[in-house]
């Protein structure tokens, strides 16, 4: 096992890693910017080194300063956490080259998965299904029609140069493909000066499902089921749960088998997450792979009873995976709510000092946070303040517990999205488990509509 681990991160994940290290008897080095001198990770670690001024590029992304900190403290491994340099192949390579251990997959894995196009090609070769569609630009309307008939409807035509919905058309029947192609292509030409189009299967109710994999450096690999991450706004996840209400045990087995086969094919090591798009018919398609510990890893931990960060450390130190696929079973249902320092309506960031704080507790409740009373939420970094994880022996219990715990939460001095989280957890679609990536927009639209209705009523009275 390592003697001393430097944690190249901040906030709750730095604390999470420090705690796992301490349980294993491993010394820790925290790094921090001048803005984070008062942070808990600085105080919890055995040693702390200030690596730069507040901007991330000068501190938490400052490879030279981080390497110098590892050198002066004699660390023998670096844990990158998530975000910052966690998926930076160049950083991982430097760490490897100077003879330190990068706690994560080999740098070549980071490099492969960092290139989204290359990753999809490689994963398709390894047996993962991709969203059906033309891989390149369509030659003409005839080709569009032929491919659309091949992959099945509905399909979506997208401008290669596109964005913002322009040059985009959803087509549900074969007879409409030609007209749609010509119209969208002309629109794209007018808008972007480029009429080239591509096409793929259109998913009406997309769900974001991801599989957790754990691999040692001796060829053993298991998966720890899926996480459902469809509650997101602008690709930022807000609420995650496991298991997914949309995934049956058969689907989980199938998804797990092909995921593990692909991971064996590339000899993946350490922990990682394979992201899938799940359509309304239960078909899933590979999107991308995350080669780091993820923000939402606690839901999997609570469901399977395994400490993923501890596993990361053990596996990076060369230990063998002692669990087999048969010995890991999902025992609980868990829900994570991300508490962000932001306006619950506009989602604008709300940094500042926390003047009053009460965190929920009790049975089946876990809070991962760096916050304390008088803690200053910095404007320089992301707005995540805490992760509230609630679990129970059924989805119903976990939901009731999450609502109860959100009701106990008090954060004063800054705005948080807790009111919005309460709304999500209480939403009828969420409660029924029948939701997809559009749910946040749907809830926001309803809030706007009810407000408009109330204003109208107030004017009328």
């Amino acid at each position, binding site marked *: 096992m390592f003697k001393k681990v430097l944690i190249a991160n901040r906030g709750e994940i730095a604390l999470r890693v420090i705690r796992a290290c301490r349980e294993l008897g491993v*010394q820790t080095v925290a790094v921090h910017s*001048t803005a984070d*001198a*008062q942070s*808990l990770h*600085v*105080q*919890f*670690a*055995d*040693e*702390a*080194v*200030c*690596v*730069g*001024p507040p901007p991330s590029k000068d*501190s938490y992304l400052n490879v*030279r*300063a981080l*390497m*110098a*900190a590892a*050198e*002066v*403290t004699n660390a023998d491994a670096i844990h990158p956490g998530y975000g910052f340099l966690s998926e930076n192949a160049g950083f991982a390579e430097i760490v490897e080259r100077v003879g330190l251990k990068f706690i994560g997959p080999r740098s070549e894995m980071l490099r492969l998965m960092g290139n989204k196009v290359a990753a999809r090609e490689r994963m398709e070769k390894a047996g993962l299904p991709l969203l059906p569609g033309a891989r390149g630009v369509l030659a003409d309307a005839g080709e569009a029609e032929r491919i659309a008939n091949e992959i099945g409807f509905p399909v979506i035509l997208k401008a290669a140069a596109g964005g913002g919905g322009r040059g985009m058309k959803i087509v549900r029947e074969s007879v409409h493909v030609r007209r749609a192609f010509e119209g969208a292509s002309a629109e794209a030409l007018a808008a972007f000066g480029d009429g080239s189009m591509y096409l793929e299967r259109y998913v009406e109710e997309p769900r974001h499902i991801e599989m957790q994999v754990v691999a040692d450096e001796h060829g053993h690999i298991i998966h720890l089921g899926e996480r459902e991450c469809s509650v997101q706004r602008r690709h930022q996840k807000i609420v995650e749960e496991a298991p997914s209400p949309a995934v049956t045990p058969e689907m989980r087995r199938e998804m797990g088998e092909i995921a593990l086969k692909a991971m064996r094919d590339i000899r993946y090591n350490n922990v990682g997450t394979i992201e899938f798009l799940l359509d309304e018919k239960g078909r899933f398609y590979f999107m991308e792979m995350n080669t780091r510990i993820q923000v939402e890893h606690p839901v999997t931990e609570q469901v399977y009873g395994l400490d993923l960060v501890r596993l990361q450390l053990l596996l990076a130190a060369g230990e063998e995976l002692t669990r087999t696929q048969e010995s890991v079973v999902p025992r609980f249902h868990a829900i994570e709510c991300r508490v962000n320092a932001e306006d619950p309506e506009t989602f604008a960031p709300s940094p500042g000092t926390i*003047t009053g704080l009460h965190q929920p507790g009790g049975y089946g409740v876990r809070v991962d946070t760096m916050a*304390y*009373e*008088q*803690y200053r939420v910095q404007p320089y970094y992301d707005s995540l303040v805490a992760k509230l994880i609630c679990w129970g022996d059924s989805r119903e219990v976990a939901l009731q517990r999450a609502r109860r715990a959100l009701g106990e939460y008090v954060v004063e001095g800054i705005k948080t999205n807790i009111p919005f989280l309460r709304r999500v957890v209480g939403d009828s679609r969420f409660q029924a488990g029948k939701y997809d990536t559009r749910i946040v927009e749907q809830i926001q639209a309803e809030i706007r509509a009810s407000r408009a209705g109330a204003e109208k009523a107030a004017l009328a009275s």
Partner: protein
Amino acid sequence: MARRVEHVERQQAPELEAGEGAFTLDEVKALVKVLEGTDVTTLRWQRNGQQIVIRRGRPAAPAAMAAPVPLMVPHTNTLAAAPPPGPAAAPAAAPKAEPKPGTIVTSPFVGTFYRAPSPESPPFVEVGTVVKKGQALCIVEAMKLMNEIEAESPGKIAEIFVQNATPVEFGQPLFRIEPA
């Protein structure tokens, strides 16, 4: 009174008996106790290559005192004690709060501090040396690169805060330069 114990650097020296070598937690506690009720704001004590710095800030607000900042049990040679939250204890800023004249030269990055260009050479400067603007004061070595740190203003070296060949972090005070 808020109090703060910070940055006891680990040296490469072998472990010595308590009382001569590494500072023990009890000794640190005793030191802090002795300072209570006095006007002393900073105490720096070196012994056998070990250095301890105790800095005492302004009284914290009652809310800050009540704040649940956990104090972790420190490991043998390194002591990272929990300062109270609040503005009183930013490490880089603390010396500036002292009413001493002159400017503080801080380390521009993490590395190892050297007072001389090579082990055989005399130090670049000593306390009392009058320096010109741009004159080399020390070297901070990071990843095998020797970076000379220069005086940004002319003056007389009034204090040298760091011992030769010890690690320094970003923003750590290295020298105080008084107007000559």
